């Protein structure tokens, strides 16, 4: 009986989109635990913001298909997880027309953020090492 939850959203009993997003929050949560902490450690412990710059990104950080794919996966997971999470928050506090407006804005921002991230990670030219 997984109805009980001590700080997450209780498992929806309805099925469909609500249940799917409940599961997705958990799957993406596990993925983010790996992706987000790896990303944070890379930028703050392995490297340091004082050595990072646009040139550094082009010539080092993103001069690798692996790290570009990694960062794009992180972007995809974080956008879906954070915006589904913000959807829950929004629906907890707003009703009626305000809710519709807030959710429409939220989804629009989500699409824009995903597009911007995708564009930059895919369009910066790959400079070969050497």
């Amino acid at each position, binding site marked *: 009986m997984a109805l*009980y939850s*001590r700080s*997450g959203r209780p498992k929806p009993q309805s099925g469909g989109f609500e249940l799917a997003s409940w599961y997705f929050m958990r799957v993406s949560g596990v993925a983010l635990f790996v992706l987000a*902490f790896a990303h944070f450690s890379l930028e703050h412990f392995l490297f340091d913001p004082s050595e990072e*710059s646009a040139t550094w990104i082009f010539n080092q950080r993103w001069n690798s298909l692996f790290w570009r794919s990694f960062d794009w996966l992180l972007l995809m997971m974080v956008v879906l997880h954070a915006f589904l999470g*913000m959807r829950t928050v929004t629906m907890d506090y707003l009703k009626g027309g305000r809710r519709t407006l807030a959710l429409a804005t939220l989804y629009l921002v989500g699409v824009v953020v995903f597009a911007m991230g995708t*564009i930059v*990670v895919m369009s910066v030219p790959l400079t070969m090492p050497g």
Partner: protein
Amino acid sequence: MLLLRYRGSEGMLAWAFHRISGIAIWLFVLLHVLDIYLAGGNPNVYDDILKFYASTPGRIMEILLGAALLYHGLNGLRIMAMDFWPRLTVYHKQIWYANWIIFVAVGLPGAWLIIKPALGL
């Protein structure tokens, strides 16, 4: 404080911190996608933003961001563990305290590494 009285005790605080940290990280992600977008579109502006990230106030904010992420991630695992093994719910407070021990054990050295360069070390 209203926040502490509603639902009361650890379970409620765990939920409130989870929500606050989730919203905070979400706000940072919005900023961060914007700044990384500028790295492609306008590298000079990006370099200026990074100078802020490398400054002392910037580093303090990164420590707070890391703390929010660490709390949210650990508590997220706690939620999932209880969702899929409901019997663990009996120990929800103990798991929460265990989370705080990990939080301090991982967070303090992490915070030190982030602030160190600002102290000239």
